[in-house]
């Protein structure tokens, strides 16, 4: 873990204070030292802050929307029924398909003349562009929700298993209605797994690069230029490696702050 996390982080930290680009990459250790120059440029002259808001709002909305889906799926498959194993496997499929396949599929469906646009059109709705302009943001969210809700489902499912059987028994004896049983008996058990699921989901959404990349391509519409997308373009299209590592660190810091506030609020890391 030291060699794969700590050492690379230190190397990246060093790179972020260098004027490292395609011209200096070959002898990167000798690249000019420019201190916080990259950080200043990232904050003042790039669309980092805009990308930050896009990423955060995208992540929060996607997470919020996947919670009911995941919880619903976990609760619904709690009871045994014929074909439950199959249903559970079906639920997992979106999560199992590689990201870029998911993105390719949805891109073909959302494109003008594709089945979604045509379908809506025959229903009398003119939906316009999904992959460009302001609506592209919602396209990204829709596809992300589809691809990621099984994460919540799996975590909640494992959480449900830790509900003591006697609790079920007691609730049954009380004759509690299904809704109040869920609300007052089961949900408190899910608080831990669900809080964790939320954090992980938000972080995964924020760091999801493949999905917007394949869905929209480079250059991306402005409305979907998320943080990893911006970092990728800076690094691999503009070849500003120093600047992109600086952006990477700032995104890390920007993400870490809300993370700690959240951790404190849900008391997940203390008992």
């Amino acid at each position, binding site marked *: 873990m030291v060699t794969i996390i700590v*050492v690379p982080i230190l190397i990246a930290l060093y790179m972020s204070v260098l004027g490292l680009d395609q011209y200096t990459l070959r002898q990167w250790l000798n690249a000019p030292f420019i201190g916080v120059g990259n950080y200043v440029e990232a904050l003042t002259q790039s669309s980092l802050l805009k990308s930050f808001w896009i990423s955060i709002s995208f992540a929060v909305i996607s997470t919020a929307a996947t919670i009911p889906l995941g919880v619903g799926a976990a609760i619904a498959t*709690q009871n045994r029924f014929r074909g439950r194993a199959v249903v559970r496997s079906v639920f997992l499929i979106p999560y199992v398909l590689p990201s870029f396949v998911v993105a390719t599929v949805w891109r*073909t469906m959302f494109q003008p003349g594709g089945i979604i646009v045509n379908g809506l059109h025959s229903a009398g709705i003119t939906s316009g562009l999904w992959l460009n302009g302001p609506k592209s943001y919602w396209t990204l969210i829709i596809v992300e929700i589809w691809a990621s809700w099984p994460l919540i489902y799996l975590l909640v*499912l494992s959480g449900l*298993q830790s509900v003591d059987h006697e609790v079920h*028994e007691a609730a049954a004896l009380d004759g509690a209605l299904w809704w109040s*049983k869920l609300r007052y008996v089961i949900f408190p058990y899910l608080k831990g797994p669900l809080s964790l699921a939320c954090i992980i989901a938000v972080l995964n959404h924020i*760091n999801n690069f493949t999905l917007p990349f394949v869905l929209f391509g480079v250059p991306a519409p402005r409305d979907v230029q998320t943080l990893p997308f911006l970092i990728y373009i800076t690094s691999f299209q503009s070849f500003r490696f120093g600047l992109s590592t600086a952006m*990477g660190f700032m995104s890390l810091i920007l993400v870490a702050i809300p993370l700690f506030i959240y951790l404190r609020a849900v008391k997940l890391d203390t008992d």
Partner: protein
Amino acid sequence: MTASALPRASSATSRKAETRQDEVLRLLPNGLLVVVIGALCALVIVPLSYVIFASLNSDVGVARGEFFPSSFSWDSYVKIWTTVGLGRGIGNSLVVAGSTAVVSAAVATATAYVLVRFTFIGRVTILRSLLVQQSIPGTLMVLPVFVVFFSASTYLGITVIGTLWGLSITYLTFALPFSTWVMVTYLRGLPRVLEEAAQIDGATNLSILARIVLPLSWPGIVVSAIFAFLLGWNDVLFASVMTNSDTRTAAIALQIFGATQEGGALPLYGQMMAAALVCATPVVLLYLIFQRNLVGGLTAGAVK
């Protein structure tokens, strides 16, 4: 022994008792259950059927935006084995993702157990730093990780780049924080009573872990292993720089195949969709095998 402690999986249990068991565990009324499952299945299956149809359709048909193919053909499923190089890719992926899953689940369980059951200075810091790791963007790490790995070959004479274990170690590092957290939350939900009882009986920590904690925490372990497995199975970022043509994973083989070249001809949609489905199959099968372990835990293992 109360009714609640009846082992649910036991074959000796009468059907009647089983039905009652299910009634007790029931969380949703029947009608709603059907609606929820129906809606969620539709949510998954409608786009999925598009993929299936596309895999049987002609490439021009897919590009034109057809849902139902105008002509059906199984060709794509035959061709992918030679064109995509899927066989070797799936083999490599199974090795890499499988080893990542097993090792990370094992290490995560042990680490989580220590973090949950013992109080020591820095415990919370460790937990938090694990989450910070989870928020490191992958794009930030590719180049530095590569630098470390090639230094290993330059200065230590160990070849890491291009090997399956090198890739596995990388994934392990990124999977561990998450797996550990899953186990921490899971273990925290387990009652200490059993462990305390064992402790009084003079069991060592290790045997408590092996005899009591492990059997109880299967659902958590399986979930954390699934996530670690999927991380290795789906990654293209690290695999693209750390594999060669012999150690290429299925995701990379698929991506190489799927990428359209500049000024290229029509993408081979049919073969790509077919390959994607074939790639997903082993994971779904594995899940089918392990999913019974997702249920169990307390109800199956408790010996009160």
